């Protein structure tokens, strides 16, 4: 069972039924309905795009492309299925396309000391450093692995939903999440000790 993704509080109470109704209204040209859908999925769309692209500006451009592309394709959406995975598949594809088009920035290698587990990040600066190291570690992972772990551990999607988003078997999703976690947990090892 999937943990519900965490949208903004203003739109958190939207149920799947409401979501289908919102889609229908958006298809009919209701700007407010599309606005609610964008509000609900902006966060996850941006994070998934950033997991793929790394650069936050590129990621926002890709997330925007994905959301607008979804608006154009809304009539193709099957309301019997969950909206989130359908939308995120489009966003992930938009991010992947953008990454292919641009010259890929080489990720800086991870600091071995940090990879082995650095000091516990109590301060804001240390947390920021941890975030930077996590982003670098993510950048070293294969793209599919990055998206899988973000969708599973950050956004709370089920393996089956992630399989639909990525167009791969559910077992492969489990494997991707496992390998991504193993890599990323090294960074968090010391921090998790209490």
């Amino acid at each position: 069972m999937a943990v519900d993704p965490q949208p903004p509080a203003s739109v958190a109470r939207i149920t799947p039924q409401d979501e289908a109704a919102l889609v229908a209204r958006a298809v009919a040209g209701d700007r407010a309905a599309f606005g609610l859908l964008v509000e609900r999925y902006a966060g996850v769309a941006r994070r998934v795009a950033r997991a793929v692209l790394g650069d936050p500006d590129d990621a926002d451009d890709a997330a925007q492309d994905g959301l607008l592309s979804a608006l154009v394709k809304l009539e193709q959406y099957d309301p019997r299925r969950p909206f989130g995975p359908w939308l995120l598949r489009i966003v992930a594809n938009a991010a992947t396309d953008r990454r292919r088009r641009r010259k890929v920035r080489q990720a800086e290698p991870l600091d071995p000391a940090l990879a082995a587990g650095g000091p516990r990040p109590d301060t804001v600066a240390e947390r920021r450093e941890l975030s930077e190291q996590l982003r670098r570690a993510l950048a070293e992972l294969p793209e599919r692995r990055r998206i899988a772990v973000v969708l599973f551990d950050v956004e709370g999607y089920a393996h089956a939903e992630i399989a639909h988003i990525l167009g791969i078997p559910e077992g492969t999703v489990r494997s991707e999440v496992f390998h991504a976690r193993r890599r990323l947990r090294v960074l968090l090892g010391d921090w998790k000790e209490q």
Partner: protein
Amino acid sequence: MTYEPMPFDHRPDAVLGAALRQALDPGDEAAFVARVLARADQARATAASWAAVLARWAGAGIAAAIVIALGAGYLVGRIASGPAGRPSVTEALIAPPTQAPVVDVVLASVLER
């Protein structure tokens, strides 16, 4: 106490998830939403203006097609109802005579023999 999740844990890892969320969260979500909606409005306006242009072109196209059809119809009708051309040799031979032969001329030709 050491936090040691199982490698094949079916549940999301809350600690890793929170750290990743913090690492990936770009912030200023309201500005992003406003930007997307503005872009969607712009796209709609562009689509609407194209539709208007195409509608105008369609109107002109229909008017031109009507004029051409009327002109063609007039020409075809005129050709169909116009005077017949010169008959061919075969038609002339097959066609019945338009007036009866004059008897004097026929008799004269016989007598001359």
